[in-house]
């Protein structure tokens, strides 16, 4: 197990180094002249040169990369070009808001998705299964902005149940639901699609296995077979999917937070990208990748801890 953990952590570290390289290349090398990108077509060459010098963009690429990555690790993320505030505090605050939103979506939808996925597996090929599978599949295909905008029209403009623009809620449960339900909805729709399908597939596979047949044949009650024998194994792959989805949530946050004006990290990435705010953009994107890699790592380790075949193999 120790060897497996060490190996897995090392791989994650290598991945992160490559990720930082990709971000750096995409944000600082690919666009060519950043000063020109920031100032636009009408600035003179002298102005462009001046801003490049001011931002330290005239130094060699490798030196800039090394500078960026070392100060990122030490928590010195610089200050935002457009907002003139320290990047660290800004990104962290927005990130926390996004976690609140994402956690709300996950807590609400994961039990439902797993439950319905298992129900579909139990009623395999019956009408219930077909209905759940078909709905889940259709939901999987819908872009967040389509569900978001349609939900906005129906639930907040037609019925006035929710505000059109969401803010970070206070601790009051009414405020939490009022502000978070609508922006969480498009994500719940997507998560439902993936998780219910995984839960169904996992359960179907286990229900066909020999040991479940043995349990049934030796006369155990159905509920005992299901909860004590089948589900323990069948939900393993679902854990991985939930972790991966938690990482991908951040991607859909870009869209959802833009629709609902929610002050999260997705919205921050989008506005920073449009205003060419490199320090904010690079830090926020790297943080997202970091979180994604760590959730994946955790999922793999949890999977290994629960499944001896992985950790010994």
């Amino acid at each position, binding site marked *: 197990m120790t060897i497996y953990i060490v190996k897995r952590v090392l791989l994650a570290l290598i991945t992160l180094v490559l990720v930082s390289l990709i971000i750096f290349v*995409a944000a600082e090398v690919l666009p060519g002249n950043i000063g020109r990108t920031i100032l636009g077509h009408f600035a003179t060459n002298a102005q462009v040169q001046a801003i490049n010098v001011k931002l330290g963009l005239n130094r060699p690429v490798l030196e800039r990369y090394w500078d960026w990555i070392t100060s990122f690790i030490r928590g010195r993320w610089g200050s935002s070009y457009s907002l003139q505030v320290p990047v660290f505090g800004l990104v962290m605050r927005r990130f926390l808001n996004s976690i609140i939103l994402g956690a709300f979506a996950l807590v609400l939808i994961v039990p439902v998705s797993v439950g319905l996925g298992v129900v579909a597996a139990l009623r395999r090929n019956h009408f219930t299964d077909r209905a759940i599978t078909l709905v889940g599949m259709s939901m999987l295909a819908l872009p967040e902005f389509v569900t978001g905008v349609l939900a906005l029209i129906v639930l907040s403009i037609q019925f006035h149940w929710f505000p059109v623009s969401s803010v970070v809620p206070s601790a009051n449960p009414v405020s939490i639901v009022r502000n978070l339900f609508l922006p969480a909805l498009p994500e719940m729709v997507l998560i439902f699609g993936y998780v219910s399908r995984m839960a169904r597939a996992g359960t179907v596979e286990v229900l066909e296995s020999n040991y479940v047949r043995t349990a049934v044949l030796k006369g155990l009650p159905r509920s005992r077979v299901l909860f004590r024998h089948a589900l323990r194994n069948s939900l393993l792959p679902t854990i991985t999917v939930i972790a991966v989805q938690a990482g991908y949530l951040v991607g859909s946050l870009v869209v959802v937070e833009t629709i609902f004006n929610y002050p999260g990290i997705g919205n921050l990435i989008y506005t920073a990208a449009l205003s060419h705010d490199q320090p904010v953009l690079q830090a926020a994107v790297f943080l997202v990748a970091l979180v994604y890699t760590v959730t994946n790592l955790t999922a793999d380790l949890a999977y290994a801890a629960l499944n001896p075949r992985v950790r010994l193999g």
Partner: protein
Amino acid sequence: MAQTLDTTAPQPSNDLTALQTRGGRFREVMAELFHSPAFVVGFVVFVFWVVDAIFWQSIAPQSPQAIHPFLTLKPPSTSHWFGTDWLGRDVFARVLGGSTSILEIAPLATLLGILGGTAVGLVTGFYGGAVDTLTMRLVDAFLAFPLIIIAVLVLSLLGSSEITVIVLIGVIFTPVVSRTVRSVVLVERDKEYVAAARLRGENGPYIMVFEILPNITSAIIVEATVRVGYAIFTAATLSFLSLGIQPPSPDWGLTIAEGRTYLSFAPWVVIFPALALATLVVSINLIVESVQRVVNS
């Protein structure tokens, strides 16, 4: 290696029979697909939008760009089935004209991603070794951020046009596709027909292209259908974030983004393109799902 070859020597050469069964298998798959209601529904809706994307100019009641300053934001009526937008343009005409951009971008981006991914996957899977390890690490790193974030990052810096969006989605798809292709190549690589080709003295590129590739086409086709769905999803989202197709195109994602301002008093400007997009993506998912089920069974 030699031993396994000896024991399987009496088997017929795979060339002719493989071709025959491949043609037969294709017809079998199609017949089975058209017996599935989910596939038929998806197929009909999808074909409707493709036909619309090509012939919308002869179907639409007026030009999607025709501006009528005195008819702005009118609700649906008999003269304007889906109402009019903030410039008095006919929403019905714009919905019909809005499928073209996305149905141009998605297949081209997919094609690019499939070509790139197949090339990378074949080479890394077939040769293995250090190049394979390194490439797969890079693929992992690439997949460590949500695709839409890479797209936002790059498009905000490079500026957006239809070509940029196509190339970007194609490039983003390449690592994803390469991973799928690599995994099937790894299985094929150890089969006897590859060993036989090696013994005949064929070189690596020949074996990859003429021996392995024909045997992994079904996996590639399934991957391509999955990718088309994602390409539409991504392209529409980019349009919505105003990083894709630019105004005054009747593109659905773009129209939804622009129409958001009028949401509270003219929801029809947004509802109809949203529903159109929803039917398109769901139809593609129905097709993908059925193809996967039938091919894998």
